[in-house]
């Protein structure tokens, strides 16, 4: 269920062909009513279905945030397990396409604060497929955030069945000198930074969190204990970003392993401007990651 997922083929072409393959009873175009899209997803889950709904972008999730946070996330708890919400909410996140302030945001970090929700933020086709399979089997409400600029990315997926559990990060690049923690599109920015560091003789370990709730604390800590230096990179505004949660956890649990304060690189605290140069300046890039490491660790 979602806006323009059927006849239009999906705003980002994700569901192109679905209508022909699955028919109009299973692929339902809705009016522009996000609150009911999510709420009807919750309600039909309460009545025994296993729905997948789409919010065209995470920006529009704000119109449905009551249904996500107050209803989807809490009904199992408030009913003492009598009712469950096996619901997947697919949505598109992120900026960088010059869509301006109200169409360029990433709120996965807000939803990752909510007990009762799970949040996935895949960065590659392999991870997206594996996590989505896990999401469909999960009996909990899941926000599945796909980055708008990653839809064009190609990647190998095996023919054999596989799934990726939530709460399992992926080390995209191994290294001993510094840990870069990232998720979603920032994983690729982190890998660019790692390539630049290699030219300077430093090997970075890039950890892609893949899910924010739950998130894989152990993999991150293990890496930090090895490298003693860490930067957390995130696209959304630095203030209140999930990088704060990660940084705080690292310094609480691996304080003695740190050679300096945990570095954080996040979106600048501005609404996204339309102008391309300014927009790019507000989003983390590899230069800023390099600078943060230099500032905090002198490397």
């Amino acid at each position, binding site marked *: 269920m979602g806006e323009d997922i059927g006849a239009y083929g999906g705003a980002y072409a994700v569901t192109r062909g679905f209508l022909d393959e699955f028919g109009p009873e299973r692929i339902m175009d809705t009016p522009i009513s996000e609150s009911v899209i999510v*709420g009807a997803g*919750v309600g039909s889950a309460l009545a025994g279905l296993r729905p997948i709904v789409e919010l065209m972008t995470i920006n529009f999730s704000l119109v449905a945030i009551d249904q996500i946070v107050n209803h989807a996330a809490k009904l199992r708890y408030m009913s003492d397990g009598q009712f469950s919400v096996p619901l997947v909410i697919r949505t598109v996140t992120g900026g960088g396409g010059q869509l301006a302030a109200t169409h360029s945001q990433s709120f996965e970090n807000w939803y990752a604060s909510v007990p009762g929700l799970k949040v996935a933020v895949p960065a590659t086709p392999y991870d997206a497929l594996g996590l989505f399979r896990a999401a469909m089997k999960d009996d909990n409400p899941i926000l599945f955030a796909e980055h708008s600029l990653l839809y064009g990315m190609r990647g190998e997926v095996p023919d054999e069945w596989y799934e990726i559990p939530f709460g399992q990060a992926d080390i995209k690049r191994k290294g001993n000198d510094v840990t870069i923690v990232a998720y979603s599109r920032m994983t690729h920015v982190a890998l660019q930074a790692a390539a630049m560091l290699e030219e300077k003789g430093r090997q970075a370990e890039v950890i892609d969190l893949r899910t924010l709730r739950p998130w894989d604390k152990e993999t991150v800590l293990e890496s930090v204990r090895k490298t003693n230096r860490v930067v957390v990179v995130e696209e959304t505004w630095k203030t209140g970003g999930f990088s704060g949660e990660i940084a705080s956890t690292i310094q609480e649990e691996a304080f003695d392993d740190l050679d300096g304060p945990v570095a954080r690189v996040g979106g600048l605290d501005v609404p996204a401007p339309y102008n391309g140069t300014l927009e790019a300046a507000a989003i983390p890039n590899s230069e800023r990651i390099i600078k943060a490491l230099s500032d905090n660790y002198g490397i």
Partner: protein
Amino acid sequence: MALLRVFEERAAEQYMLGKIRGFLHLYIGQEAVAVGAIHALGRDDYVTTHYRDHGHALARGLSVNAVMAELFGKATGCSKGMGGSMHLFDASLNFAGGYAIVAGHLPLSTGMGFAFNYLNDNRLVATFFGDGALNEGEAHEVLNMSALWNLPVVFICENNLYGMGIPLSQSMSNTQLHKMAESYGIASAQVDGMDVLAVREAAETAVQHVRSGNGPYFLEARTYRFRGHSMADPVLYRSKDEEAEYRKLDPIAQYGEWLLSSKMATQKKLDAISAEVEKQVEESIAFAEESPFPSPEDLYRNVYAQLP
């Protein structure tokens, strides 16, 4: 109805004694709506309602003990103390809540209706809400989509003429709420919500319409709450005279008079019913008192469903 009335009155007393905490929204005066309407439903139909939900829960058949214990926050409550007054649930009776967000359950009810159509199983959902719920945007999204998709939803609007303290005329541009539903292409009617027989008849019409595959139905029941919005309400926004006028229309008194005058019951029988429900409610208070609280280990239970 008598059970609902006595339950609410005793619950109010327990609230004043500090046994019930948080918010308590009493259904006193509106009993005919829940009782009359739920009578028209089948066992497999779903019921959802707003936070003034004790009446609907009891009318649906939830155990008096379990409801009182839930209000007391005890582990023997229908939601083991995790939901409280505004979040009563009982899956075995298809009572799908008790919701605190005004109009928040309307989209859920749309989804339930969708599921029943999808499964083709002839069930419907009866969803109760107040006049205030129609202030919310999502209520209108719901009316639109339910009509558009021909969903098996019986909308029961309990119009008690006030939001918290705002009178209907100051919050709705069209105070004939069922007419508003009509504008979405939904069959609708208005009924005297103080007359339990009229409510039941109107609800039966609604259920018949919906179960025959004609799409949703909107029933506006005009009623009145004799107490404030909640226990915290000093009720400064309406006059005692107005309340007195509406008390003359007490649904229980009306029905009692009708039973007596039509010889369907004797005064003795009515007294026996009164005594019986008083006893049930007293017992439920004792039950709630003696029940244990949930333990600290219960805090994290059911935040998530465990993976199979």
